[in-house]
């Protein structure tokens, strides 16, 4: 799990489960590879539209991909 600005995300794990490269995920999201890398390494929190795009792509609720660390926010 990657931590950024208090925000954690599962992007790297989800991508690895699908055997996708960063470039391939970037293409599927129509963003740059740098954007995917920055989200994965916690240097950038995506906008709400991009977070929704990720949720649709991985067919998961946003809160299962991103976790702000607030107790009770994780829906596992």
């Amino acid at each position, binding site marked *: 799990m990657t931590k950024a600005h208090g925000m954690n995300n599962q992007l790297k794990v989800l991508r690895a489960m699908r055997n996708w490269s960063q470039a391939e995920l970037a293409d599927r999201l129509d963003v740059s590879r740098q954007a995917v890398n920055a989200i994965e390494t916690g240097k*950038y929190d995506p906008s709400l539209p991009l977070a929704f795009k990720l949720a649709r792509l991985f067919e998961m609720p946003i809160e299962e991909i991103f976790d702000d660390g607030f107790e009770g926010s994780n829906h596992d």
Partner: protein
Amino acid sequence: MALKDQTMTDAGKTTKRPMSLRRKRYLIAVGFSVAIGGIIGIWSRTVSPDVPDTAFLFLGNPALTASFAIGASLLWAIGLAIGIPLFHRAVDDHEERALLWSGLAAWYGFAFAAPVWWLLHRADLVPPVDAMLLFAGSTIVNVIVWLWFKFR
């Protein structure tokens, strides 16, 4: 996006992914900007062959011909008017954030330097304010911050 055309190989590597519309737009915008800069640069060399280099031509304030000054100004202004919307239609969230911060940093750089230079000049402590040096300085700040946010 035509993802069905993509062929999965091993370890997530793919072959022949079609270029996305966003990337095409990005490359067109960058190519267009480079072309405008190139035309101005090459043109400047032909009208001022005695000036040692192009950077000095623009930052060192040697005399320019009227035709070049008007033509290059029009190219610059029209080029920016076309290139900026092209570019901003092609950037993603991540780069947009990099651009916002780099633009702000460039403005702060200008806001620090310009009044200080102007005040010191008013007391005859430094040469007159040079707008192009301020522009060059804030552009350098802009590029450094953009690179930091985009590629760190």
